[in-house]
């Protein structure tokens, strides 16, 4: 076994690890509202979402090999890695990918610890951008595309992120308003039951779409690493084991359920009733499917959050906790740069030590960081048993009178 093979194995394991965090980070997007309204029991909801993600991931036959091209220049347009990065058996490219993935996972775990629904795609792109800047300099990043289509960090990441919550929020607000207008005079007992069914259906669509969209990205990254190290040459297909393992990783992650994030989205933003839940999930499903149909890919997380906020705005008298929303938006804004900083740092550490040793060290740093955050999360555990507890906004901190100097 050569040094490159070991580094490749580390990249594959780390990529599957990212896919796993991608799964549990995003369970909330589809299932938070169904869990909050009691349409599905928490365990049933995550199991359903996991299965649909598994099916969705297998359905993504289309090769997402060029996924990194949207933000960085480490691949040619046909998906093969840049020759300059493969001259030493591929380790230069593998280190960039590994460092980028470590940055993405660390940021995903950190926002999970805080219970904030940040975008996993932003974390992935951020990590890759950071590691590329560190490895190849600023010119290695595709900031703005070439002007012929929506492309680059600005076109594929920043602009969609600004627009998607607004679009989804508008759609959900209109939907919620219409639903409440139409069902005036119908007993709540009667409507709640019906809308719970609608909610389950629309949430299932969101889960399926998530599986097809997100698992592909990890499949593309792993295949890129395989090509770079000479283990695979076909740029139009991906190995079956890559597809199967990515599908399993995202499904298991989804089944594990990011309960902290589910709690924030389901209980923290808005007190959701079944009609609102259905409006929110329908809006998410429609916006995600329509935008991917138009080749204008949006982050599931931003869409889902916008939809839930919209369902609070559209129901008169509903309380929207804008402070929680503000914290989320702050997390979105810093996701890309933060994952980039971690990714860059990891690349510098890996490059300083060099070769297999460097790759091993950043892998160990990842394990240590993940272990620490898991340990921290056990102090205030959130799981299926307390995910729906009342949301107590921490009281505003006031300086006691008389302490001013």
């Amino acid at each position, binding site marked *: 076994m050569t040094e490159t093979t070991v580094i490749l194995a580390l990249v594959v394991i780390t990529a599957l690890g990212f896919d796993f965090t991608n799964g549990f980070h995003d369970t909330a997007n589809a299932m938070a509202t169904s869990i909050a309204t009691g349409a599905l029991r928490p365990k049933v909801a995550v199991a359903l979402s996991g299965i649909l993600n598994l099916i*969705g991931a297998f*359905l*993504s*036959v*289309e090769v997402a090999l060029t996924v990194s091209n949207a933000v960085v220049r480490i691949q040619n347009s046909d998906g093969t890695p840049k020759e300059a990065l493969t001259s030493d058996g591929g380790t230069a490219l593998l280190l960039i990918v590994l460092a980028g993935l470590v940055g993405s996972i660390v940021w995903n775990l950190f926002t999970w610890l805080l219970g904030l629904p940040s975008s996993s795609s932003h974390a992935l792109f951020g990590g890759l951008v950071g590691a590329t800047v560190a490895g190849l300099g600023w010119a290695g990043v595709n900031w*703005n*595309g070439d*002007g012929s*289509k*929506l*492309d*680059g960090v*600005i*076109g594929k990441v920043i*602009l*969609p992120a600004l*627009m998607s919550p607004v*679009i*989804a929020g*508008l*759609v*959900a607000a*209109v*939907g919620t308003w*219409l*639903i409440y207008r*139409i*069902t005036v*005079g*119908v*007993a709540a*007992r*009667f*409507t709640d039951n*019906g*809308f719970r069914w*609608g909610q389950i*259906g*629309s949430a299932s*669509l969101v889960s*399926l*779409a998530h599986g*097809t969209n997100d698992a592909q990205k990890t499949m593309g990254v792993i295949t890129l690493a395989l090509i770079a190290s000479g283990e695979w040459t076909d740029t139009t297909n991906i190995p079956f084991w890559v597809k199967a393992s990515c599908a399993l990783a995202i499904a298991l992650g989804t089944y594990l359920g990011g309960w902290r994030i589910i709690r924030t989205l389901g209980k923290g933003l808005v007190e959701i009733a079944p*009609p609102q839940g*259905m*409006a929110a999930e*329908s*809006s*998410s*499903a*429609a*916006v995600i*499917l*329509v*935008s991917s*149909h*138009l*080749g*204008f890919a*949006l982050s599931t997380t931003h869409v889902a959050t916008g939809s839930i906020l919209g369902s609070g705005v559209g129901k008169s008298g509903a309380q929207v906790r804008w402070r929680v929303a503000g914290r989320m938006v702050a997390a979105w804004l810093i996701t890309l740069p933060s994952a980039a900083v971690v990714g860059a740092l990891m690349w510098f550490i890996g490059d300083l030590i060099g070769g297999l040793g460097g790759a091993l060290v950043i892998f160990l740093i990842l394990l240590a960081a993940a272990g620490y955050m898991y340990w921290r999360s056990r102090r205030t555990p959130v799981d299926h048993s307390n995910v729906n507890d009342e949301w107590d906004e921490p009281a505003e901190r006031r300086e006691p009178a008389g302490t001013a100097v």
Partner: protein
Amino acid sequence: MSNLGFALEGAWKVLLAGLILGAGLPAVFALGIRSMAFGAGGDAEVDHAAPHPVGRLVAYVLFAVVVLVALLGITYIVASGFGKTISFEHVYPAIVDK
């Protein structure tokens, strides 16, 4: 055209289609619920009106519309997995190559 132009062009299309599918369909579903309550009568409605059997029939038609469009959505997801897409060129949906 700049990235902003492309993004705005995509955004309004997503918003329009999103409103029709994402807000329109739930509204149809809500009409179905309303019609169902009209059909059931009694304590399904706050005014405790008498049951109207036709309401139930209308409700089933409305629910069927919602289910059909949702199935179309699933078909779209599956089709795009196989490199196909759904075309509305001839009004009725057809599966075509991308």
